[in-house]
């Protein structure tokens, strides 16, 4: 299983903004119940989209700068980046089929 790797405030630019492939970023925090539900769904998607989309996660407690920069005020939030720009945003828990649909629409 392709576990989404952690990105931080300091690695965000290199790993997300300058990435060649589209990147889905899962903004989460340890205290957020629905985030714990989203995580396994994102892992499954990471398998399904392996090679096409990169999957990473960012802990908003430890990396507040990036969360603030992208106006994250609700988690879980998933942002899809293409060529350094936000191409899609999903707020709150959604079933896998919904997420795949939204992802297909932007990548």
């Amino acid at each position, binding site marked *: 299983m392709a576990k989404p790797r952690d990105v931080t405030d300091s690695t965000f630019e290199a790993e997300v903004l300058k990435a060649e492939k589209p990147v889905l970023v899962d903004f989460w925090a340890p205290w957020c*119940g*629905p985030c714990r539900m989203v995580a396994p769904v994102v892992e499954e998607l990471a398998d399904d989209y392996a090679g096409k989309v990169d999957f990473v996660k960012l802990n908003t407690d430890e990396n507040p700068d990036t969360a603030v920069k992208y106006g994250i005020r609700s988690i879980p939030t998933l942002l899809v980046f293409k060529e350094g720009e936000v191409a899609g945003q999903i707020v*709150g828990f959604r079933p896998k089929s919904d997420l795949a649909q939204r992802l297909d629409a932007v990548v």
Partner: protein
Amino acid sequence: MPDRHCDIAIIGAGPAGLAAGLYAARARRTTVLFEREVTGGQISTTSIIENYPGIDEVDGFELGQRMQRQAEKYGTEMALTAVSAIEPRESSFRLATGNGDYSARTVIYTSGADYNKLGIPGEVKLTGKGVSYCATCDAAFFKDQVCAVVGGGDAAMDEGLFVTRFASEVHVIHRRDELRASKILQERAFANDKMQFHWDTVVTEIEGDDAVKRLLLKNVTTDETSMLDIAAVFIFIGLTPNTTLVKDLLKLDGDGHIYVNEWMETEVPGLFAAGDVRVNSARQVATAAGDGVTAAIRADHFISEHFDS
């Protein structure tokens, strides 16, 4: 593909559905529990539950997970997919789901209720940008900022008190002149220096472009309007039962709850309803669990009477 078959299909994995699953599986009935979103239902986003007998204090999400593990331990099968239709057949029910069709001898409908939206300008546009229906998810983003909570019931006070851990001030906007929350939550809310109360007041608009900036308020007794600058508003103004799948099958009360008898039986034999979706529910974790247990025991009896020889 042929229908998959089960004895008891349960729709909705909140406390009612999970408790029903536990009892149904322990009665050795093949049991499938359908959930379209998050295990736990409303409690999945409740920060602390401290009124479930025997458990001093537990995170709501954790309690839901524990209930699921317990139901699965005895054989309940979880199906994380939405049910799109329930069709009564001669001696079974046909369920259309995201995993294909199922046939079930009995159905326990535990779909719960969803938080109401205010339905005012700015609400949809600013959801996730300071408009929230889950304080435990979002309150931490508003450290040392001014927040508002709309509502006067248990959920509004619970969540409002949770928001005070982060926010500098929490303004409670309530359309009546007294709270409906339980007395112990009222005492805590009134004793908290960060909580401020706006009585007889409704929110008419949420302003902001990329983020919530202010609320427009109206006093319903004086018609006086005012503005309140805030960074976030948490909305807890009651619930609407999820009865889309049964509204053409069953009689509902004015608010959309399903009529049941003391055995959680609906007017359709073999179809049960339990938890927040039924009439006169006390809407507590403990009562929902109790309802689910009652429905599962009755469903087991129903199968014995009609199918076991």
